[in-house]
């Protein structure tokens, strides 16, 4: 076989991109490529380099194309990058199209029989005889298909100067405890690396150089972070129904609960987890458990929230606590179930018929996924209402590096619950009486002995004593108090985070858009346009948000949906400033990249 010569890159003379590049790997889903990709990502991470991974996968179990991008960034940018410097093409079906779309100068590692090297002249092709290498390195033909992917990890490691010791460590970590699998995969990675040492020249296009940026950091996805927050928040009842991209939140919760939520003496469980028949039933379980005093939750995505909406309105009106995680995906309808979007903003803000308003938490980092999930249960019990924690597929299912989570030392706030003695002493107690003037009433829990505190909860009209009523004044008393209660939440929800470069021009975003906005801000500033950035973390809007809106000349509202849903809520909340809000939108199903923000804001500025 001829020795492949790595030609100088066509953009020759450009300086080497050290720890600053993207790699895209195209494979077939179900082929085991996820393990290989995670190993490559981890190995770079272990070299001390900031790295993020995004899996673009189909709604299918096996056989359809899937892409994984790994971005290394010395500056710590972790958003999706619109261009890739290295492609690894393992999928015959998409290879030609992938080559056609490749950025000029990209290194293209591909499976030799695909014969891609004649397709373009402005790319650097690296054919690799994967089948031959896997046959030689792996004694079990059954495993060839799975192990083949580990070979490209070895080849990429050689080309990028990633230390093979780190690759091996990452394999051991990823396949924790499975000695045989570790051995086979390490041998395959070695086979790729050795072949590349022998047959490929050095390249100076992109490189990994050891750094110290990731010392002490963890790699985690948002669903796991949320699950952990819930574990530490002491959740006791979970009702759920599987749906991408929310399933792994409860599934990870179940794994941790198996280990950490068993009574040490009896081995019995301190949390009840039931996979319900649908999302309606999940919502019912959550609200009734909350009503009965448990900390309860579910996790779902847009279609599930749509189904739950009748119940969410009941929870709001009868004031039953519960935490609803919405890991959003691309809608409408079934939409693109495995792609990301922030298109449930208005749905979660006002879920259900009639006048309803909900507290929504919008974590934007892994630490916030953990902390807000922990806090959500306090808020639910404090405000006696359903709380939405809204993330999305990008936060929930992708790999993010993060500082380790700090132990939440703050004790639980179980809200205004009267016990037997307090009920006995209470004069003229009424379930919906606003005794403290904060819109939050005192509740009792079913099963409290003593003969006091029983009441009838109903989704129909009721008065302050929880009695059935159709009287206008009773109705108004309750719904106007609910409005006051919601207003009161403004001083309890997380305040926004600012990144101000000193400007009268504002950028406002939330959730998973954060890394792209930060990068865009820097790019814009380099081009002479400074901006002040407010990252919103909750509804209702706090005083800091009011001030920002008031003070800025213009507010670019960045969000990942078609209709500018958050901007709509801003226009509705601040009608006097309605013309300040300009929508910067990204909604094709891929995670937002800095480029689309920069381009749109630049276009607005040039008008």
């Amino acid at each position: 076989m001829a020795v492949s010569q790595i030609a100088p890159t066509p953009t020759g003379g450009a300086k080497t991109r050290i720890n600053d590049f993207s790699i895209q790997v195209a494979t077939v889903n179900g082929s085991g490529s996820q393990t290989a990709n995670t190993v490559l990502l981890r190995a770079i991470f272990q070299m001390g380099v900031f790295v993020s991974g995004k899996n673009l996968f189909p709604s299918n179990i096996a056989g359809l194309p899937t892409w994984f991008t790994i971005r290394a960034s010395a500056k710590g940018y972790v958003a999706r990058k619109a261009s890739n410097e290295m492609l690894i093409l393992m999928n015959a079906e998409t290879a030609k199209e992938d080559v056609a779309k490749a950025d000029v100068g990209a290194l293209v590692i591909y499976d030799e029989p695909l014969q891609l090297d004649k397709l373009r002249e402005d790319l650097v092709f690296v054919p690799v005889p994967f089948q031959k290498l896997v046959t030689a390195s792996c004694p079990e033909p059954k495993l060839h298909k799975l192990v083949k992917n580990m070979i490209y990890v070895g080849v990429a490691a050689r080309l990028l100067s990633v230390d093979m010791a780190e690759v091996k460590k990452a394999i051991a970590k990823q396949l924790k405890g499975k000695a045989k699998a570790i051995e086979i995969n390490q041998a395959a990675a070695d086979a790729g690396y050795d072949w590349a040492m022998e047959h490929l020249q050095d390249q100076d296009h992109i490189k990994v150089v050891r750094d110290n940026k990731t010392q002490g950091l963890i790699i985690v996805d948002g669903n796991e972070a949320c699950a952990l927050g819930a574990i530490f928040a002491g959740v006791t009842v979970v009702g759920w129904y599987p749906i991408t991209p929310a399933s792994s939140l409860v599934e990870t919760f179940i794994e941790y609960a198996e280990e950490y939520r068993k009574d040490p003496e009896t081995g019995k469980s301190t949390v009840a987890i039931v996979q319900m028949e649908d999302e309606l039933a999940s919502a019912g379980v959550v609200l009734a458990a909350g009503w009965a005093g448990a900390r309860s939750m579910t996790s779902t995505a847009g279609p599930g929230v749509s189904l739950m909406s009748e119940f969410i309105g009941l929870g709001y009106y009868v004031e039953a606590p519960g935490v609803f995680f919405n890991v959003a995906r691309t809608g409408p309808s079934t939409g693109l179930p495995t792609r990301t979007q922030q298109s449930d903003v208005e749905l979660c803000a006002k879920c259900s018929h009639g006048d309803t308003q909900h507290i929504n938490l919008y974590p934007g980092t892994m630490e916030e996924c953990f902390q807000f999930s922990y806090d959500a249960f306090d808020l639910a019990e404090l405000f006696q209402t359903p709380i939405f924690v809204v993330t999305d597929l990008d936060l929930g299912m992708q790999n993010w590096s993060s500082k380790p989570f700090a132990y939440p030392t703050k004790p639980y706030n179980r809200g205004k619950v009267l016990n037997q003695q307090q009920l006995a002493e209470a004069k003229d107690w009424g379930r919906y009486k606003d005794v403290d003037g904060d819109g939050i009433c005192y509740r009792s829990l079913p099963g409290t002995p003593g003969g006091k505190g029983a009441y009838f909860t109903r989704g129909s009209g009721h008065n302050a004593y929880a009695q059935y009523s159709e009287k206008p004044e009773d109705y108004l008393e309750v719904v106007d108090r609910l409005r006051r209660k919601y207003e009161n939440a403004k001083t309890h929800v997380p305040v926004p985070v600012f990144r101000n470069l000193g400007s009268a021009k504002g950028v406002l975003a939330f959730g998973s858009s954060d890394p792209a906005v930060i990068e865009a801000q820097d790019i814009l500033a380099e081009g002479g346009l400074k901006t002040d950035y407010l990252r919103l973390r909750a509804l209702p809007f706090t005083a800091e948000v009011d001030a920002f809106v008031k003070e800025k000349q213009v507010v670019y509202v960045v969000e990942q949906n078609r209709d500018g849903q958050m901007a709509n809520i801003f226009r509705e909340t601040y009608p006097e400033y309605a013309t300040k809000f300009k929508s910067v939108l990204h909604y094709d199903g891929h995670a937002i990249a800095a480029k689309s923000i920069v381009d749109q804001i630049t276009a607005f500025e040039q008008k």
Partner: protein
Amino acid sequence: MTTATPSAPTNKLGFTKQDYVGSKSTLCAGCGHDAITAQIINAAFESNIEGYRVTKYSGIGCSSKTPAYFINQGWGFNSVHGRMPSLATGASLANRNLINIGVSGDGDSMSIGMGQFVHAVRRNVPMIYIIEDNGVYGLTKGQFSATADQGAHLKTGAVNNLPPVDPCTLAIELGCGFVARCFSGNPKQLGAILKAAFAYEGTVVLDIISPCVTFNNHDASTRSYKHVKDHDFPLHDLGFIQYSEVEDVDIAAGATEHVTFPDGSKVAIKAIHDSYDPTDRFGAMKAIHESMAKGEFLTGLLYINPTQPTLTDVLNLVDEPLATLPESRVKPSAAVLEEIMQGLM
């Protein structure tokens, strides 16, 4: 206890029957649902139920209003149409000490709420699940429900051409361990069955034929008082013996059968017509189908299996109510978080 007149009899807890009532009913005079409410009050009183442990769930309908009319000492949760079972599921998990009563209608349970009915029964959620079955949607003014008999007439003359769903055979099929059919016009039978139901740990399904006097009591109706009375076919005389009060049997000694519950309580069963074995699941299915084909209502304890693990048992939960476990029992330590973080590095 406060409202008792000096002479009113009390139960073993010192409560009078008045302590088990609720607010005044707003249903039509003569509605079958009110007769059921009266029997629930009676049975709770006689079974010495601690009112504060009672929770009451319902969906939407005339029937679903009734939890407000009994056991005011307990907590009620009137929810959305057809979704009462998931509420009972959630609350029973939150607090395993609660005594859960769900009241629903044939519309609430056999149409919009069919899925929740099926799955609550399948999970054996600890609850008494009552369907007040009148063959129509009372609250929305008399449309057919899914239990309406084929060929049944509405007052307007409309005819139901579709076959009915039978909650009892369905419940048996789903593995329910306590299935009974009663008639709101037969208080003695209903009372005995309700008392047995209070002693049962898992899901109890009671399909109670309960005529709607306003929309489904006309001559051509198959759910009118007259029609049901004429076609009621009681299987047996029943007596319920709470474990603590063996002397209180209201059935003649020498009753043919006893079914014993894990706590020692017993149901005494005396056959009226041919012998019927309510512990024979397949025999029960056969007998119900045969009687339905004849247009009869076979009433009584249709199927019983006193030992069947409930959802709470299956989940292997701690003995105390989950809802009130202290923070120290549910929040893992800082060392645990540290260990998890190390694993993610």
